């Protein structure tokens, strides 16, 4: 088994693991983390393909196909930007509602409770820090 196949298989398993984590974890932070693991797996798979591209290309003067590598760098940066936005949304949700549940019926319970009106009480989550 060569390096590209080994890391390609490792990447396939990482994507599966991440998908499982994304589906079963109720906490949104864990979902963001799982999405990042899926992303890392996809990047690693792409990297293994880039590594194979070098063997077909010029051998040692480039270690791996530079086009996928450049796309990977772009991908990693964009994935970080998306994670940062997701975390900011999550923290804001916690600030206004005091919890982070994604389940619809719970937020309905929250809205009917006058004590925790998220609009008039924006610091509800802030005090828990």
């Amino acid at each position, binding site marked *: 088994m060569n390096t590209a196949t080994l890391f390609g298989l490792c990447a396939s398993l*990482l994507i599966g693991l991440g998908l499982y984590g994304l589906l079963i974890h109720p906490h949104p932070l864990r979902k963001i983390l799982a999405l990042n693991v899926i992303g890392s797996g996809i990047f690693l*798979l792409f990297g293994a393909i880039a590594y194979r591209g070098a063997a077909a290309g010029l051998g040692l003067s*480039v270690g791996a196909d530079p*086009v996928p590598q450049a796309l990977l760098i772009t991908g990693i940066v964009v994935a970080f*930007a998306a994670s940062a936005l997701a975390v900011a949304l999550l923290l804001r949700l*916690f600030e206004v509602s005091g919890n982070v549940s994604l389940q619809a019926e719970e937020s309905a319970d929250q809205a009917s409770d006058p004590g925790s009106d998220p609009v008039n009480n924006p610091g509800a989550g802030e005090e828990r820090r």
Partner: protein
Amino acid sequence: MNSEVIALGLNFLLALLLLGLAGFALLTRHNLAAVISFMVFGLLLTLAWARLNGLDVALTEAAIGGGLTGFLLLTAAIRLRPTEETMQQHMPKASTRALAALLATTVSALLAISVLALPSPAPTLAPQVMQHLPATQVGNPITGVLLAFRAMDTLLEALVLLLALLGVWSLAADTAWGGRPGIFPQQDANGILAYAARLLPPVGIIIGGYIFWIGADHPGGKFQGATILAAMWLLVVISGLRDTPPISSRSLRGWMVLGPLIFIAVGALGSLFAGHFLAYPQGYAKLMIVAVELALLPSLTLILGLLLLGAPKRPVKS
């Protein structure tokens, strides 16, 4: 032959460690443990990139994938600690988990089959890149791809970062809009964090600048350099030595859009003098690339740092 066996053994060990760490990060009940495991995973992934001859990607992964994302998730996990116990009660039923496991296994198996069935010889663009690289006057083929052959990707990437930051800022409460992001801790001026924040930035700035500058000919570049500079800035901020600028500051906003604006201007020059948007006139490619990278560096440093600091929370005194 013998060294090949050792290399294969090391690769195998690395793959096992990666899977173990990712598995722990996804299966443990504790958010903080999961995030720390994910950070170690990111660092080890850097080694995997080095094994795959992707040093540029390894640097990016270490700086952004492992470092910045890890820091982001870590601070969020600490802030969200009060929610952890209640959320654990929402764990799905065993049947749902079994279905999820089945789906995940199927996806993994299909991908593994595709990996084993990849065409040989592998399709590659490496020869074309190496053939046309001299025209760009840079020595690092990845920089050549990022800033010449696929410059549009890089321009849009910088714009995506800017948009993500606008999205983060737009989550600020009305009372905090225009204020300074991050919490400014009043810390012991003689504490160890403040000491590190005085000692490390001069070294970090030199390393960041170096990684930025050699990116033209060797692994490195603006994103990796900007991340190190952003990390140094964040160290100064979280140690309480210097507060962040308010997001209403015009000079801050000016520096943030400087890089993308210069990039677009260079692209427009290309359509005037070389026939295409983002085409470089013959003989001026290196100059243009350096100008774009130099302008992007401060913008990226600020944007990456501000993305980590999140929306402003402190009420603005009017």
